[in-house]
């Protein structure tokens, strides 16, 4: 049997010097407007943690999309701009080209990036704009009430596919991330998730790389982050994460898709 451990009291433990995890200072105090359990919050936090760790708050400029994360600027304590639906990569291009020493990133949903914004996405990637794109894939249009997104799975229900996505009629779930990986302008392309501790750790590393490569002027880093939209999927958050593991991630497998050949 294990020997008896000293049992510390809460008071012993909850002391400033023992604090091992705290909300990053770069998140504002505003409460996220997201639904309970929504992955946007984690994605926000990780980006801000990276900005904090790299000490680039004064050089970071974020572009919020039109989508649930439209108000991202209420939470990220950095300079931000709100793009028109789908055009975040164009804004990022305009900013980065005129201020090459900034760290510029977009934060975009799957409707924003892979439907209306397809041209801007493809061409920013193809030009190899030296920015980071954080692509938040929840397989649905969260903000507008759960309509089909380009990434919605076959047979998956949404408010515009109430009987399930019919491939013949609605087309195929679009793996835009694999697509942009084909373009010479992308330097680093990866798919991550944030629904489990291990996934969160990896996602953060990926985000960090995206910033570091930007510093090295390597071109475009494209980091997909799969999250649940429990509201749009009409599930409880924990169930949604489970459904994601079982159904979504098999189609959109996690991991690096394009990594720099040599560093």
């Amino acid at each position, binding site marked *: 049997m294990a020997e008896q451990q000293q049992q510390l009291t809460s008071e012993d433990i909850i002391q400033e010097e023992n604090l091992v995890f705290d909300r990053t200072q770069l998140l504002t105090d505003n409460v996220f407007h997201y639904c309970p359990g929504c992955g946007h919050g984690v994605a926000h936090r990780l980006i801000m943690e990276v900005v904090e760790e790299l000490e680039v708050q004064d050089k970071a400029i974020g572009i919020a999309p039109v989508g649930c994360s439209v108000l991202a600027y209420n939470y990220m304590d950095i300079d*931000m701009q*709100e793009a028109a639906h789908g055009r975040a990569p164009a804004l990022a291009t305009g900013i980065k080209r005129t201020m090459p020493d900034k760290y510029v990133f977009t934060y975009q949903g799957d409707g924003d990036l892979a439907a209306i914004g397809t041209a801007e996405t493809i061409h920013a990637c193809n030009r190899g704009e030296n920015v980071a794109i954080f692509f938040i894939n929840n397989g649905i249009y969260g903000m507008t009430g759960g309509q089909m997104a380009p990434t919605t799975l076959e047979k998956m229900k949404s408010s515009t596919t109430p009987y399930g996505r019919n491939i013949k009629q609605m087309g195929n779930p679009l793996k835009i991330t694999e697509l942009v990986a084909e373009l010479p302008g992308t330097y680093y392309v990866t798919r991550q998730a944030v629904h489990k501790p291990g996934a969160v750790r990896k996602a953060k590393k990926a985000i960090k790389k995206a910033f570091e490569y930007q510093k090295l002027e390597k071109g475009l880093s494209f980091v997909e982050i799969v999250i649940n939209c429990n509201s749009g999927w009409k599930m409880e958050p924990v169930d949604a994460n489970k459904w994601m593991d079982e159904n979504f991630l098999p189609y959109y497998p996690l991991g690096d898709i394009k990594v720099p050949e040599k560093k």
Partner: protein
Amino acid sequence: MGELKLMKGNEAIAEAAIRDGADGYFGYPITPQSEVIEYLAAQQPEERTGMVLLQAESELASINMIYGAAGSGKKVMTSSSSPGVSLKQEGISYIAGAELPCLVLNVVRGGPGLGTIQPSQSDYFQSTKGGGHGDYHLIVLAPASVQEMYDFVELGFDLAFKYRNPAMILSDGAIGQMMEKVEIGEQKPRMTEQQIKEKYPWATTGKTPDRERNIITSLELDSAKMEKFNEKLVEKYRTIKENEVRYEEIQCEDADYLLVAYGTSSRICEKTVEMARQEGIKLGLLRPITLFPFPSQRLAEYAQKVKGIMSVEMSSGQMVEDVKLAVESRVQVEHYGRMGGIVPSAEEVLQALKQKFL
């Protein structure tokens, strides 16, 4: 006096952008204004001043590129012609809603649709009343010569930054393609980041400890706040109307009849005035230089004095509505227009005037 050059209107715009110290141009080719980007490409503004040049994948992308750069306090512009400008309407509305300064050039061609590539003035409504959604206005400048194409770049940027409002140069194929003598100004330096930070504290240049984060947005979900913002815009437009009306008067002092025309039409009408005067008709020309704000008050004054006003436009009659709104029925207002890329001749304008009033 500055250097004299023979330039196309489109080239003058491009040269003026470099010399005015612009930070960037983002555009997509379309006739009759592709010379703007071509001239810039030949000039390599990156090397001359560090100005950025990018051929975007579309008009949508280019308007949103300048949206981004303008949000960071940069002096940026785009240009296009009618169909391309229609594609920019959402972006323009966003820029107006985010209160950002920038310059958009429309070298108008005839529509609707693909229409013709020949000159037209049929985008007046779109430019002055808001082709995009929502209550907003652009500051609209209407050059009538290549020199003004050059000069209005600086003027447009100045007004845009003064009021944090997008400005438009509303030109047309004739002025874009034509060459005239242009007096070129000195090269102005581009603003440094430090200068931008000081002058435009709202710009997203990176949050520093000495200030709150800057947010560029046009979103406001709270209707009460949104209405406040709309009222602020209305107030801004009122100020602009008060302070920024520009027009030129040609032989107006003693005029019995008045032509109102801008841009290419006004050049034609200048000649019509000459011809009429030779015939002893006391004709004058009021040329609005700013289409928004429109010289309504000046027109209202003339409405007391003249016997008739004719709006001459290369359109089916758009500005004539603003003329009518200005003169409030105190005098007869007529419209004479040509369409489809056809520029009226001075003779036919005179003819029309006689027919309608004499």
